[in-house]
């Protein structure tokens, strides 16, 4: 609880500091941000739409990092997951299966992300390849594969534009109302985050993962199969990231281009860190950052500040938090409480 309060305090501090640093009147800026995030029902739904993929990718990062698998491959896994879903979508396009097709596509997304993460896990287990390096490489390969797919096998027939088929509404995630983009993916994301929290904190598998991540030498002494546990966490993390991709694809447009990903795989990392790699804390923070992403659009309309502004707040908050924790630890150590 205390860490959440500190996180919020540092976050608020950085919002104010960043506004001031770019010469935006702080009071006015805060008002615009507030209106953009929660000002009316459209703003709220936009905030939640943005929060959905952040929640999933941050949860994915938390699952892997907590087990010591420092993957930065959520971006590639998200892309490949969405691509798998699109392949199944193309296959089932004229089958009139509706809801069943939707489930199949979500499942394909989970599978795609898990497979992409599993490659990195396999290379780490069998050949000792560093997960950081292999996931960076797999991100690049994933982006190029998506380019290839939307220009080749996934492209709409008889069209030159690199776009996939438009899915019919009954194959997409249901929307809550006609006026907003808010879709059922949000509920799915919350369920997945809660399930991930349960897995990490209350099951044996999650506990082993935390042991391997927190204390590898203890894990070795009690004969835990570290490679297997880390690989499993990484694959699970990929599955969640892949689901994020499928949900973005099936929730918003039902159509994919090569610029489909908006970097949510990378943006999940700071959210996961601010939430202390705990899905229960990630949940509120992804809503906060979803709100900030939605709100900066509003800020730019009046203040000549674009979408990059949130990154400053995100990154600044993480760094502030890390530095705070470092000196807090030092202070406790001096007092002998640590």
């Amino acid at each position, binding site marked *: 609880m205390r860490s959440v309060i500190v996180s919020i305090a540092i976050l608020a501090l950085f919002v104010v500091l960043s506004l001031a640093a770019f010469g935006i009147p702080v009071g006015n800026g805060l008002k615009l941000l507030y209106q953009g995030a929660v000002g009316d029902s459209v703003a709220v739904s936009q905030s939640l739409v943005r929060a959905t993929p952040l929640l999933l990718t941050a949860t994915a990062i938390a699952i892997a990092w907590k087990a010591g698998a420092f993957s930065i491959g959520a971006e590639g896994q998200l892309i490949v997951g969405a691509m798998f879903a699109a392949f199944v979508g193309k296959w089932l396009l004229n089958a009139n299966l509706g809801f069943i097709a939707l489930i199949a596509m979500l499942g394909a997304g989970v599978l795609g992300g898990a497979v992409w993460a599993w490659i990195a896990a396999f290379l780490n287990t069998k*050949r000792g390849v*560093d997960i*950081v390096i292999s996931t960076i490489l797999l991100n690049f390969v994933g982006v190029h594969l998506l380019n290839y797919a939307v220009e080749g096998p996934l492209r709409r027939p008889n069209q030159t534009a690199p776009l996939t088929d438009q899915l019919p509404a009954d194959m997409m995630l249901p929307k809550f109302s006609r006026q907003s983009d808010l879709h059922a993916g949000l509920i799915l994301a919350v369920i997945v985050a809660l399930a991930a929290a349960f897995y990490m904190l209350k099951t044996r598998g999650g506990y082993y993962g935390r042991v391997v991540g927190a204390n590898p030498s203890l894990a070795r002494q009690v004969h835990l199969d570290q490679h297997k546990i880390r690989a499993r966490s990484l694959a699970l993390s990929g599955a969640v990231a892949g689901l994020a991709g499928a949900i973005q694809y099936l929730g918003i447009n039902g159509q994919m281009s090569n610029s489909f990903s908006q970097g949510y795989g990378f943006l999940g990392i700071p959210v996961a860190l601010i939430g202390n790699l705990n899905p229960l804390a990630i949940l509120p923070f992804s809503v906060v950052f979803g709100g900030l992403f939605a709100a900066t659009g509003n800020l730019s309309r009046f203040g000549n500040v674009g979408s990059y502004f949130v990154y*400053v*707040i995100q*990154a600044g908050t993480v*760094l502030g938090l*890390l530095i705070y924790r470092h000196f807090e630890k030092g202070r406790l150590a001096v007092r002998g409480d640590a």
Partner: protein
Amino acid sequence: MISPFDLLRYATPTALGAVGETVLQRSGALNIGLEGVMLNGAFSATLIAAKTGSVWLGLTAGALVGLVSTLILAWLTNQLDLDQLVCGAVFNLLSLGLCGTAFERQSATGKLLNLPSVPPLFGKFDVITLLLIATATSVGYWLYRTDSGLKLRASGEYPAALTAAGFSPRTVRNRAWWFAGLLGGLGGAYLSLGVTQSFATEMVGGRGFIAITLVTFARWRPLGVVFGAILLAAFEAIQFQLQLQGTQVSKSLLLSLPYVATLIILIIVGKGTQAPKALGQPLEDH
């Protein structure tokens, strides 16, 4: 056909960053934030070059801002012992946010459109490409043939031995960070002033990450990373050629080949023996 000189010029930003990263990784530190360092270099170079009209001041500013970037990263990871991966990833985001926002506020004034170019020195070589070759060669020599090069490698392999010998791995790593920052910033500056002649917020486009993987690809050898960067540039050139000729080979699959090749090399050599043993691990002395 595209000349080898153009390939070299195109490869130079990535190669500069990768040579710096090689030295840094040899000292045991990992700069995942290279992407951000290069972006900061590119933006400050653009800004100064446009304001002063001097390409040399621009390049110098880029290198210096790169240095400041790694001073921050070195303070976080080498002094406070914070996680190198976390700090690097977050630093990338911070740089993207700062440069992106600052650029949007600047570009509204339209002052960043007229950029001076880097003049050729002789033939098609310019100062920076020559500097790259000279640096990579001399770093290769320095790493293996000098005392201080040995100290640097010791800091990456077994820092405790360096401490026992009466030297500080922290100091060695700090200097490696400075060097990596200067080169990374210069690489970014050359990207905006020498290669594209313009600035865009997304312009680094993964070059920093590519440079990091090149270091692994080239087994931590400075001339190897330059070769690797030229190879990557060649792949992109071939892709453009094929597109012009309307060949049926998918350009995207072709572009992914270098990354797949790097993965395959990693599978073959595995962890290998060349990777610095203490790479990415914080120091334990105090």
